[in-house]
């Protein structure tokens, strides 16, 4: 007897919403003075939000000869304003992996008015090479890698970007996020463009990101879950916590960000009562996800 309604193919169901990328492919390449500089990202694409980056320089040299590798993404706006985004500026070669690991948290997508360029410099045999390349930053279709930018109560500019999981499960998921702060330049630009001191971001230290995940749909009545853990910083600089999703669908990660002294910099407590028919109230600091 065949069924009247088909059973849900659960694995396929999640796959249609979320595409998980595993493979690093070349997203940008620069040829300069006989050197080939390859910048790899997941799926060969730069997306808005957090991007892990692998930089490789090939040519007539050994990687040990390469030193002082720097990486700086800069976005030029319509009014010629220039800003950067959280990134790893000084890159250190990882001999085991065979590349220079880094990251960039692009804060906007490329458009007619907003152009992203990568400024890369490196030294081989005491000779400094500086190159730049225009790249395309695309919209991140996976909401599980969303990001948010905001100003904290301390007046600083912050960015929170989700790093993992790319593809959550109905389960306890390890939630990884980067929290970055723009370092206001202490002095005006100097030297030739770009002056890195004008475009400096750092991962903040010993902050806490309090987490309260909820389903915002009115029909879900502010549904939440148990066994969630606030995000705290680990040795790689990223922030780790646990989010427990009880079903697939839309979730809001409500955050409260505390600095190293436990002072609230952003975020508000959300109501915890079950309110069927009412859209869930969000914290002033939140990121929406979907799976």
């Amino acid at each position, binding site marked *: *007897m065949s*069924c*009247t*309604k088909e*059973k*849900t193919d*659960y694995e396929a*169901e999640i796959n249609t*919403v979320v595409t998980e990328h595993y493979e690093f492919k070349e997203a940008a390449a620069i040829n300069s003075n006989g050197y080939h500089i390859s910048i790899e990202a997941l799926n060969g694409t730069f997306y808005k939000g957090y991007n892990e980056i692998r930089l490789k320089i090939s040519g007539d040299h050994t990687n040990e000869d390469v030193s002082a590798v720097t990486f700086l993404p800069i976005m030029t706006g319509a009014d010629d304003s220039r800003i950067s985004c959280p990134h790893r500026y000084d890159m250190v070669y990882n001999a085991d992996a065979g590349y220079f690991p880094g990251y960039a948290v692009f804060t906007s997508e490329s458009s007619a008015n907003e152009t992203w360029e990568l400024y890369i410099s490196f030294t081989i045999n005491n000779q400094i090479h500086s190159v730049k390349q225009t790249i395309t930053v695309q919209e991140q279709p996976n909401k599980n890698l969303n990001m948010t930018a905001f100003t904290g109560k301390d007046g600083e500019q912050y960015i929170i970007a989700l790093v993992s999981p790319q593809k959550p*499960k*109905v*389960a*306890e998921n390890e939630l990884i996020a980067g929290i970055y702060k723009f370092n206001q330049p202490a002095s005006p630009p100097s030297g030739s463009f770009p002056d890195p001191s004008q475009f400096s971001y750092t991962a903040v230290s010993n902050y806490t990101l309090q987490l309260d995940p909820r*389903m915002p*749909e*009115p*029909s*879900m*009545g*502010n*549904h*939440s*879950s*148990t*066994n969630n853990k606030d995000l705290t910083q680990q040795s790689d600089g990223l922030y780790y916590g646990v989010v*427990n999703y*009880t*079903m*697939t*669908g*839309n979730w809001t990660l409500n955050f409260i960000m505390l600095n190293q002294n436990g002072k609230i910099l952003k975020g508000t407590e959300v109501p*915890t009562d*079950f309110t*069927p*028919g009412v859209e869930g109230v969000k914290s002033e600091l939140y990121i929406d996800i*979907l799976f």
Partner: protein
Amino acid sequence: MNANAQNTQAQKDTTKMLEEIKVIAIAKKKIQTEMKMAVTVDEFLASSDNISFIKRGAYAWEPLLNNMSSERSTITIDGMHVFGACTDKMDPITSYVESNNLSAVDIKSGQEGSLHGATVAGSIDLKRKSTPFSPEKKYNGAYQTGFEFNNKQFFNLGNLSYASDKFVADGSISFRKAGNYYDGNNNEVNHSQYNKFNTSVGLAYKTSPFSAVRVDAIFDKAKNVGFPALPMDMWLSRAIITSASYKQLFQHGLIRVWDTKVYYNAVEHYMDDTHRPENLVHMDMPGWSTTYGLVSRANLKRGDYSAEIQLNAYHNLSIAEMRMYPQDRSKRTMFAYSWPWVTTRFTSLAMNNSWDISENSRVNFGGSLGYNYNRSKYVEFNWIFHPGTQQEKSRILPGLHANYQLTVNQFNFSAGGGYGHRAPSVSEGYGYYIYNSFDRYDYIGNPDLKNEISYEANASAGFKNEKIGIEAKVNYFYIQNYIIGRILSLGSPMNYQSVGVKGYTSLDHARLFNMALNANYNILQHLHWKGTLTYARATDDKGGNLPFIRPLSYQTSLHFMYKKIGFQTSLNGDLTQINYSPEYGEDQTPAYMIWNISADYSFHIKNCKTVLQVGAENLLNEYYSTYADWGNIPRIGRNIFTSLKFSF
């Protein structure tokens, strides 16, 4: 109940034997109550003194045996395990059969019922009709139609059988259609309608003078069934229940009958909340349950000793989904499993023995040993509340029981005891946000629940002569690790109507006591009186009341026959529910009393026996609901029923 069917050599006619071998005498009830000849399976079961019902509407009542919910009993059809596909228990097994394809219901209390599988409360085995082989060709049939005025229920039931020396065929078909019923205040109870279609076929072939094969199938389809006490209705449920069996009789030796059956059944159940405008959220909740299995039994007899040995094995897969739709339907739906593909495999070997120690005393004893295995395919759903719990779980389920019966002149006595384990049900172990509209909580299963362990004692005493019969029965259960839902302080509800989350947990123990007093008196040759009084009490480990325990209840009836006319009247009711349980969502149910009356007239049209019956249930149109009515939904008010039955 002829235990000596084999005065054999002379009697070569297995036709008779197939029918008569009942090595252990079992009191079976015919599918008909005294009040009403055209009963539903539910109405019939309700006439048994150790069965009560949780009712969510007019259809598909959940049978409670010894005041325990259906997880605690094994409910089978001819020994076959069938599991409902609804997480809300809207489809107990009894809803997938019809009175015209059943011949009897075999109810056993407590561990005596462990023959069909591990149990605490006992077993309910629904026996299908099976016509015996006949030396001369024979056709039998019946057709019954009727109308019930309260809910405009119209039903047609037909069955036909053919029997010859080598071949037997049984078939039945039934249609029932009912509208909303009206309560005792003449208010319509919305969403109480139902439609049911059921058909069955059975074919048997005699392969040798002492062996036969039989194949059976039941198809049942219910559509547009309202559940007034739930926030949703049922759009469709379908079941196909099939089996093939081989039966071998033996003329000599210890083993007299060996009967082996393989079976397969599939149940699907789809809920529908689109007829409830109060639901802000639309939700699909389909469920599927597929079971295949084997049941093999042998009947043994030597001298004063007889026994049944039964091997049970089955494999069940239960799946239930929840898909919630956001207000903006173009947006993503939200999805979770309420049964995350839960597999149950069960095997047991059970034996019941009976030994006539003397002419007036007998010992019954037996036991079973079961192995229960569960696996949750999408165990991540179980990890939400029970992080890291094992995906697979095995349990050993032993059971033992013994009983001594003594007859002294017109008095009879019995005393017995039992011990047995049961495994948590799929919902208790692996359920995920199963909404229970009685207490309005979402329920979460716990895969690591311990086995429920029952210690039971029972006794009875009776007196019987030609005019008077009276019998008192008591049983007492001390149940360790009693499984029940407890409020979880953490977690928030998922279902729209829910007020909180409960997790299935084990109480240290619970105690249940059941008592029934039955009496009958033949006032005149054609005037009979019968009465029943039942009482039950159940407490948890802190002395608090358990829910769904029937208050003191009574039933008394008079039956009078004059020539071809029969006349019955009965009173039944419950007293006020004193020991109710607010903690588990109950409020106090007031007392009620119902008066029923019916008359029938039997006559022949040629060779066709015809019975015409007219009657009224709840003649005084009392407005009431019982302790077990989900959400205090009022029961049906005055209901005049008529039925006409032809049989040949």
